[in-house]
């Protein structure tokens, strides 16, 4: 199966909707161990992305992702803006000029995004950050695709890994970001960045599911 600009745009629309719907929850999680702005900041950023999508339908996938990254960089602020902004821009740079993707290229783009978060945040797994949700998801997806698992199933496995990674941040003690200032008092709370990463992953996988449903519909109609 193939992945096109339309799918990327629908993923971004879905991500914007999920972030909007969970904005208060994200901010409340952030109030417990951060500075109570994660939901509001991300919602501002994805709302700005949404406003640009209409102008991007004729662009290639790399451009769509690059504009998304730049928009998040210039509207989100805090730590989330540079991290998500860098992730989208790295994926966009890798896919410059591309209009159709195979599964293997999807893996490469996600790995580039992951590497962007690692380098920008100077972060390792286990520090109670968004990386703890993103990294297991990307690794699971990569391994599943390498083993020949179908895209839909690989995406489901990856999403389960992201969710598990998100929950795994609860017992962690933060050593990065503002939660780190709390020391042991950061234990027992789910990381807001890992939570927003989970919603963005949901938006990605939701899109794949819809795509697969539609392709089945098309084949049955034939």
């Amino acid at each position, binding site marked *: 199966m193939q992945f096109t600009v339309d799918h990327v745009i629908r993923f971004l629309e879905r991500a914007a909707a999920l972030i909007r719907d969970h904005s208060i929850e994200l901010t409340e999680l952030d109030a417990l161990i951060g500075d109570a702005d994660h939901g509001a900041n991300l919602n501002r950023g994805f709302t700005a992305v949404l406003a640009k999508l209409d102008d991007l339908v004729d662009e290639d996938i790399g451009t769509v992702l690059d504009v998304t990254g730049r928009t998040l960089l210039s509207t989100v602020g805090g730590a989330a803006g540079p991290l998500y902004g860098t992730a989208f821009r790295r994926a966009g740079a890798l896919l410059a000029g591309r209009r159709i993707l195979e599964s293997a290229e999807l893996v490469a783009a996600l790995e580039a995004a992951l590497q962007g978060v690692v380098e920008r*945040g100077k972060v390792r797994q286990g520090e109670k950050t968004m990386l703890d949700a993103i990294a297991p998801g990307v690794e699971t997806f990569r391994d599943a695709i390498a083993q020949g698992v179908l895209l839909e199933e690989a995406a489901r496995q990856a999403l389960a890994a992201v969710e598990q990674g998100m929950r795994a941040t609860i017992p962690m003690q933060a050593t990065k970001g503002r939660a780190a200032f709390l020391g042991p008092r950061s234990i027992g709370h789910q990381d807001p960045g890992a939570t927003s990463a989970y919603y963005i992953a949901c938006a990605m996988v939701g899109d794949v599911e819809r795509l697969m449903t539609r392709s089945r519909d098309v084949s049955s109609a034939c």
Partner: protein
Amino acid sequence: MKKLINGVDAVVSDALAGLARAHPGILRVMRDPDYVVRVDAPVQGRVAIISGGGSGHEPMHTGYVGYGMLTAACPGPIFTSPTPDQILAATRATNGGAGTLYIVKNYAGDLMNFEIATEMATADGMTIASVVVGDDVAIGITELRRGVGATVLIEKIAGAAAERGASLDECARVARRAALQSRSMGVALTACTIPALGHPSFQLADDEIEVGIGIHGEAGCRRVGLAPVAAIVDWLCGAVADDLRLCAGDRVLAFVNGLGATSQLELYGVFHEVARWCTEHAFVIERNLVGNYMTSLDMAGCTVTLLRLDDELLQLWDAPVLTPALRWGM
């Protein structure tokens, strides 16, 4: 929540408009992207000094834009660092051809946004240096230390160096030395209320105080019972001086900073105890600063900063300055 605002979304925007109306002779406020520049920027042949951070700490940083201090400041939303496009726009608008020094407080978001701005400005052919401020001894791990009170002192010192024509390297050098020579510690009596949140970010009982707080409504490192100010100052000064390894006879600048909701009356009481404590330990207070200079919205409490002075830092501190919040010598 009871605040003098038109609405949660208008707080920062209205304050920037007010700042522009209040100080037209000192600074200009630019919008979309938001930044504040001194009225005569760019100053040809002078290093530009730029800082920025979340709003909610006023007068920091926008109140320090002007002659002898910041060339520009980039205000983010409340407690949220500014974005790279704000910093890049401020860098372009203040580029006098001698380079730009970013003064960055040690928070993950601030570091990353200034890092991306540095990459963009460098790609544009501008020369950037950065100094990171992390003076809060409440945090044991040095790399994690937050930038608090010392930021104000470093902005003044770096600005004075730039004003007298120092090179980018020299400005960065004195700013780094001032950063290495200063430490801070704070205490909160109440949490602050972030407008978008609508309630205090943590709860303290009437007889409790939080020691080692940051300036973003985050809780501190421990909670203790309320005590007389003399005892509180003993803890704060003790922690600061120990970490700075102050020795008898050292000269210091003592900075008592209010967090937004503590009266000047109490702050002078704090300074009285700081002076008493310094005398007891044979540290010489050469200069002082007492007031609300780096706030945390409406948090009650204070931070105490000690900066070990030498002749050069003292001269730069004493140099003329004309900004909304600090002005002397002219």
